């Protein structure tokens, strides 16, 4: 299949491209050109700022895909432009969304708890919204306006050795350096997914006949207290932390 990936040079986007290549697909990556192409001649590399709708239209002219992955869309404006440009160019779009489309209110979330099909659209760019609201708006635009099937994959925090956000690293460093960590609720439970599993799910979402919003996370949440306990245990040589 012909697959286009927006945001495919680092972390789980890079793993997704690797999976697509391994499975024999014809892969194109699209980046601003700030990071180098780690795949060499195994992919076609298009260099353009996806926020420049005219340039994006030009560079994609005459091309078609079976699946387009957008891992770097954070606003309804970006979603609107992409939906318009890809009209009659792709058979499917897989959009990387987030747990942050849901409120952190202590209740375990099902897909229906945020319904993008009925959510009121308010247009704007990335700076006009919080991260979660930008993703809600982008989902709403895609599901209401796209002329092709869309999957929105809602990930929790993605972790892995190559996590450039270094948020799990933060806790390891603080404990190693004996520096304080402040948080509002140490008993609050959260969930995670690895970069490998995130990529595997995105691939699945593309090649299988699903559409609509899908939650994707490893099974079983962990409290911050237990997570810090795991770090303490890994630093110490003592007993296994009983989580």
């Amino acid at each position, binding site marked *: 299949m012909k697959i286009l990936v927006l945001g495919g040079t680092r972390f789980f986007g890079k793993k997704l491209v690797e999976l697509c290549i391994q499975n024999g697909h014809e892969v194109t990556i699209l980046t601003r050109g700030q990071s180098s192409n780690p795949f060499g001649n195994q992919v076609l590399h298009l260099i353009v700022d996806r926020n420049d709708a005219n340039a994006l239209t030009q560079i994609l002219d005459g091309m078609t895909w079976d699946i387009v992955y957008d891992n770097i869309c954070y606003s309804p404006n970006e979603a609107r432009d992409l939906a318009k440009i890809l009209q009659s160019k792709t058979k499917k779009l897989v959009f990387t969304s987030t747990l942050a489309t*849901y409120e*952190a*209110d*202590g*209740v*375990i*979330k*099902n897909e229906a708890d945020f319904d993008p099909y009925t959510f009121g659209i308010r247009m704007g760019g990335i700076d006009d919204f919080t991260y979660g609201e930008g993703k809600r708006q982008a989902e709403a635009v895609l599901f209401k306006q796209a002329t092709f099937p869309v999957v929105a994959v*809602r990930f*929790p*925090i993605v*972790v892995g*050795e190559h996590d450039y*956000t270094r948020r*799990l*690293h*933060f*806790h*390891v460093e*603080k*404990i*190693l350096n004996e*520096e*304080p*960590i*402040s*948080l*509002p*609720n*140490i008993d*609050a*439970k*959260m*969930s*995670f*997914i*690895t970069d490998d*599993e995130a990529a595997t*799910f995105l691939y*699945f979402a593309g090649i299988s006949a*699903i559409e609509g919003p*899908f*939650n*994707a*996370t*490893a*099974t*079983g*949440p962990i409290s*911050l207290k237990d997570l*810090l306990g*795991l*770090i*303490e*245990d*890994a*630093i*110490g*040589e*003592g007993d296994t932390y009983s989580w």
Partner: protein
Amino acid sequence: MQLAKVTLIAGDDKSHSPYGIPADWYMATAKAEVAGFTFSQLKDWLPGLVQTLVKHEGGN
């Protein structure tokens, strides 16, 4: 054994956990499982990942 020094609300900006959430915040995956995807168990890999990160940071 080195222990985390946790404060609840106060603390300077440098100490704020990027995982600081006010209440449970996680998702059900029944819809994806019904569609044919089987997710990993967090318990099977999180301790190993934490150990790897600790080693990278020079601890133990």
